[in-house]
């Protein structure tokens, strides 16, 4: 496929690896922010191909992972109602709440449907005027325009049987929280390409200047990721700290203005709790007052739900790049993708689940890196 296959080219990847080897003189710790990038890195074994002086740690960029447990429990309470058709992206179906996952709720008779686009909820709502159609609106900035359009159109059409359960989180406040931490080890970031396709990267310029940290807005294919690493390493070796854009074919400095306009009409910034991390100020979206009639939490009044995470789980530290999945005593033992104990195991884009899926059960020194280099497509 065009714009996909060429960015998985083994020859290009080898060339970039050579450049990285000659550019790198000192040890550096880089964080890829987005869960999609983490998945690519582990899938293609990119971290194993890099010189040993460059460590990649995995960031908090998986919205499925960081959706708080109590919100998942609320989703289950709403989905279980007989008057509700509950719609969700497929990623959320297997994420366990306190008692079970959405798939189990469905098997008990609830009408739970997977949608590819939030706009499908409009069709369902028109077809079933006697039912309440609720959409689980989760995601980062990348997904916000799609979810905002659902609410925008529902209001325009006067579809009163549509509502959204919102769990929207934002990337820049999470990066700031990581950099502010006294345990921070991250010296440079691979920024989230698709988040920036929407939002642009002016906010990242402020962060880069304030914390004197290089941020390279990066794509998702192996060649993109290696070029992102090369650009970040060059900045660090030359003592520069600025925002550079590796993903020029899809990202502009101001992002997508049409999308941002709808997002800021429908949503406003608020504090959000991140699973495994806790509350971060100004780190998410909620519906603006003009759209609060579409808020499922108000419409169904599910109340406050108390939840408890297992004490053994270190996902909070994994999400902030302080520890790796195999540092956890429960990893691949009592905690697996089928029975996750915490945030980073619940979705395939979480660092723990990616490590589990691609056989990273051992620390780097204890596993073979052979055979990974040729895996390019």
């Amino acid at each position, binding site marked *: 496929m*065009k714009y*996909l296959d060429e960015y998985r080219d083994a020859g*290009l990847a080898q060339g970039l690896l050579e450049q990285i080897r000659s550019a790198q003189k000192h040890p550096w710790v880089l964080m890829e922010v987005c869960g999609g990038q983490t998945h690519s890195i582990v899938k293609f074994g990119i971290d194993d191909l890099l010189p040993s002086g460059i460590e990649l740690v995995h960031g908090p960029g998986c*919205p*499925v992972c960081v959706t708080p447990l109590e919100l998942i429990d609320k989703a289950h309470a709403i989905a279980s109602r007989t008057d509700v058709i509950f719609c969700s992206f497929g990623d959320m179906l297997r994420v366990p709440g306190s008692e079970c996952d959405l798939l189990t709720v469905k098997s008990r008779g609830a009408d739970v449907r997977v949608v*590819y*686009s939030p*706009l499908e909820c409009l069709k369902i709502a028109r077809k079933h005027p006697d039912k309440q159609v609720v959409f689980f609106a989760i995601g980062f900035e990348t997904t916000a325009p799609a979810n905002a359009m659902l609410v925008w*159109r529902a209001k325009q059409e006067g579809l009163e049987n549509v509502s959204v359960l919102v769990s929207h989180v934002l990337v820049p406040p999470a990066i700031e929280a990581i950099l502010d931490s006294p345990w921070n080890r991250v010296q440079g970031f691979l920024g989230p390409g698709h988040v920036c396709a929407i939002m642009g990267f002016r906010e990242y310029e402020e962060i880069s200047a304030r914390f004197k940290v290089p941020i390279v807005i990066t794509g998702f294919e192996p060649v993109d990721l290696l070029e992102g690493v090369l650009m970040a390493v060059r900045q660090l070796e030359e003592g520069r700290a600025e925002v550079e854009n590796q993903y020029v074919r899809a990202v502009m400095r101001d992002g997508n203005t049409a*999308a941002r306009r709808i997002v800021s009409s429908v949503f406003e910034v608020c504090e959000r709790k991140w699973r495994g991390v806790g509350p971060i100020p100004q780190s998410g979206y909620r519906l603006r007052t003009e759209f609060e009639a579409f808020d499922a939490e108000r419409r169904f009044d599910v109340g406050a739900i108390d939840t408890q995470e297992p004490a053994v789980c270190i996902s909070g530290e994994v999400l902030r790049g302080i520890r790796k999945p195999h540092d956890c005593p429960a990893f691949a033992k009592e905690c697996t993708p089928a029975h996750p104990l915490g945030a980073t195991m619940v979705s395939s884009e979480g660092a723990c689940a990616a490590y589990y899926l691609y056989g990273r059960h051992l620390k780097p020194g204890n596993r073979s890196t052979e055979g990974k280099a040729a895996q390019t497509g």
Partner: protein
Amino acid sequence: MCLGIPGQVVSLESAGGLRMGKVRFGGVAREVCLEYVPEVALGDYVVVHAGFAISRVDEQEAARTYQLLEEMGQLTELDEPDTETGPGQVERPGEKAR
């Protein structure tokens, strides 16, 4: 979750008050909302996420980047010595350790 797939716009239409179109990914075509890429024309490539085109792929930038990367790869290959002891051999960091 933030997965975005590049595909080619193969039809433009209006549906439910929105600018929609069909986008082809390899052999599969899907209906996609094009409201956020008003500049897009038939034949353009877009990055699609959750049923929405979130960005038009800048073909010139893509071609330029690809060419740069390719040249970089070729230059590295030219650096590669033909024989162990050939004249003009370039010694690179880490080479002795290998």
